[in-house]
């Protein structure tokens, strides 16, 4: 089945083509939905079969390349359109197609009655196609193709309801913001690719990585390459300083937020860092930067999430925060832990978003959690699955998020140091708090909504069944990565499975400081206790004792405003980057360069021609004899000239 892995990419494309070109004519929503979902479902089955086949191979044979055709060939640059099927790409493609399939099914219910139903499924399929290219690509160029493709789909889907208002502008503004901010990251990514090609004379993964191991290359070059690639990752994966687009991306429909802006696309940066682990491992300075940026992002985004009132905004900041964890893991060299967290995060965050979508659906597009309350009686399935997801993200023992988060914290402690562990643990506590604040305000407590206006109801089963499946995955997904101390074996299933991909990077990093199991258990206990306290406090305060919060708000009004306004980062960017660019564009580039210089040149040339022709056209006076005379004079002159020259 490995040979046919390209079908897993092709089917979503077919779905896109059918729905994109003929969707408008297909009247039945169900047909469109089935086409859209089944193509992704087939892609999942193909990935699964390829996975089953690969797992039966001995470890050395698990990396396979599927060449399709030569894409570009020019003077030494030879880019093949090929797919790399190995442990990492299979893991990612299972996550993308699996979670993607569930979200497609969910969307059939969520998007019911939307006038752009066919367009929605066409875009979603196009997204899966691009994402699969990103994951499976065998060289940086195919990866970049997917990288840009998912950016495009993200743009299209954020602006899906292009005629709706969103905050101060329209959803189109949010879409543009996402696209432009991503462009900055992509620029860095491109520079990284150029530098890789210049240094290694190839863009193929295996070439580049093997050369990176063996060639003697200046560490500065590695640092630059890794830094540029990481800039690309900060754009796509919403890290400081380019995270600002992700909260605005919530303008899109909720399934989009779940699929693209939580589970899959935003993890592309993590995947890329993980794929190019050897390049990053060779650049220790950049590794440090990544770890710090990841930790800062995780912490700051979590603090913002504490006070937001829009249900999707809270989840958006939560996503940024969790992505920060993944980069923290990559930064301290625990690449497999970051992918493990990508996987568990895909399960529980998709579930959180879909649950939120179910709530929004039931509350007629109301998104302010202050206007919810007590919904558990109206929508028990959503309530129960949301609870599971919340426990998972909070790191409640036994749920998937616990295993992955704990692994990251452990490696942050071992490879990074106490401060990284501490930051991560505090962030974990904040995470538990904000998610249970959201949970309590939404599902528990008094019903604060207007009963005449809102009639909450449970969503149809086409929406709840994906929720239940994701809930099961959110619980069980973590058991492939049980910590060593509980499983009595070296490493764990997930880590051993991915091990070969990171072998060269780990050899380079060589962190072999010894730590006892006692430490691991102690740290685990502390972080779990912090999370449990946070959960208890959040539920207690937001259901029984809301006035405590009001008191705190009044007491720390400055801090509250700072958090509520997201550290004013948007405003700062606006005044130091956006506005100067606008002023320069308008005053200098438009009014001066364009209007005066360029228009002046173009119009001036025409004006000169005009002046001359105005004079010269008088010669053409319509008198035939005049023409004849000139012709005669001309002939005489030519004859004269010929005779003289004889």
């Amino acid at each position: 089945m490995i040979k046919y892995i390209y079908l897993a990419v092709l089917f979503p494309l077919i779905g896109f083509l059918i729905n994109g070109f003929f969707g408008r004519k297909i009247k039945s929503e169900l047909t469109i939905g089935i086409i859209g979902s089944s193509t992704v479902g087939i892609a999942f089955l193909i990935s699964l079969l390829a996975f089953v086949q690969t797992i039966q191979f001995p470890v050395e044979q698990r990396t396979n390349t599927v060449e399709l055709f030569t894409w570009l060939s020019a003077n030494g640059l030879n880019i093949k359109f090929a797919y790399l099927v190995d442990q990492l790409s299979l893991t990612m493609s299972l996550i993308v197609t699996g979670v993607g399939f569930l979200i497609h099914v969910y969307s059939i219910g969520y998007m019911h009655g939307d006038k752009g139903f066919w367009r929605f499924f066409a875009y979603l399929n196009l997204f899966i196609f691009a994402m699969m290219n990103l994951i499976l690509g065998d060289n940086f160029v195919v990866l970049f193709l997917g990288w840009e493709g998912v950016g495009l789909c993200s743009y299209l889907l954020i602006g899906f309801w292009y005629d709706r208002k969103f905050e101060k502008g329209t959803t189109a503004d949010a879409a543009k913001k996402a696209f432009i901010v991503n462009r900055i990251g992509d620029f860095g990514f491109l520079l990284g690719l150029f530098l890789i090609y210049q240094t290694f004379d190839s863009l193929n993964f295996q070439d580049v990585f093997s050369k990176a191991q063996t060639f003697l290359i200046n560490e500065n070059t590695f640092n630059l390459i890794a830094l540029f690639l990481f800039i690309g990752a900060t754009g796509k994966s919403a890290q400081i300083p380019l995270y600002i687009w992700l909260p605005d991306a919530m303008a899109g429909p909720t399934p989009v937020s779940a699929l693209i802006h939580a589970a899959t696309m935003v993890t592309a940066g993590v995947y890329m860092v993980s794929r190019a682990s050897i390049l990053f491992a060779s650049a220790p300075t950049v590794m440090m930067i990544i770890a710090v940026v990841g930790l800062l992002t995780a912490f700051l985004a979590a603090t913002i999430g504490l006070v937001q009132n829009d249900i999707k905004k809270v989840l958006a900041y939560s996503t940024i925060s969790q992505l920060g964890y993944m980069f923290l893991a990559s930064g301290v060299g625990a690449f497999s832990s970051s992918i493990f967290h990508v996987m568990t995060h895909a399960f529980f965050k998709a579930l959180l978003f879909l649950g939120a979508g179910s709530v929004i659906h039931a509350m007629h597009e109301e998104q302010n959690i202050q206007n919810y309350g007590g919904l558990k009686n109206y929508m028990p399935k959503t309530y129960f699955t949301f609870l599971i997801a919340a426990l998972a993200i909070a790191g409640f023992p036994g749920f998937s998020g616990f295993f992955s988060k704990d692994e990251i914290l452990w490696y942050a402690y071992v490879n990074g140091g106490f401060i990284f562990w501490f930051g991560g643990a505090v962030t974990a506590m904040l995470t538990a708090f904000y998610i249970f604040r959201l949970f309590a305000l939404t599902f528990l407590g008094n019903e604060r909504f207007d009963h005449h206006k809102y009639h909450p109801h449970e969503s149809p089963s086409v929406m709840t069944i994906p929720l239940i499946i994701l809930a099961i995955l959110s619980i069980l997904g973590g058991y492939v990565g049980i910590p060593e101390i509980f499983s009595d074996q070296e490493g764990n299933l997930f880590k051993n499975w991915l091990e070969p991909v990171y072998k060269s990077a780990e050899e380079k990093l060589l962190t072999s400081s010894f730590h006892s199991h006692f430490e691991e258990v102690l740290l685990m206990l502390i972080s779990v206790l912090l999370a449990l306290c946070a959960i208890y406090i959040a539920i207690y305060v937001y259901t029984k004792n809301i006035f405590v919060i009001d008191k705190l708000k009044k007491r720390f009004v400055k801090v509250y405003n700072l958090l509520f306004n997201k550290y004013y980062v948007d405003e700062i960017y606006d005044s130091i980057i956006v506005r100067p660019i606008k002023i320069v564009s308008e005053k200098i580039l438009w009014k001066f360069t364009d209007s005066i210089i360029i228009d002046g040149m173009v119009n001036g040339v025409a004006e000169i021609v005009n002046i001359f022709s105005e004079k010269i056209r008088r010669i053409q006076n319509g008198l035939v004899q005049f023409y004849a005379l000139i012709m005669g004079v001309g002939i005489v002159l030519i004859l004269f000239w010929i005779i003289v020259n004889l």
Partner: protein
Amino acid sequence: MSVIPIEYYLILSAFMFVVGVIGVFIRRNAIVVFMCIELMLNSANLALVTFSSYIGNPVGQVFVFFVMTVAAAEAAVGLAIIIAIFRNKQTVNIDEINIFKW
């Protein structure tokens, strides 16, 4: 019997040509201009016959017949154009026929 020297023919031909050219340049009546053009054509014919006879190659004289045929056709077309112009403008004075300009 003495032969007329070739220069005589050529001078006559040149004279006719110059008359034709001057006529084309200075006369105002389209019919006259047209006749002057014919004059130039015939002067060229004369030069052609002269040289042909002088060299002793009859091809030039045969060629003149072709030229005359074409000239006849051209005269018919030219006169037709002049008549068409006259019907439009009630004049054949070419100073007044100056509509082909800016």
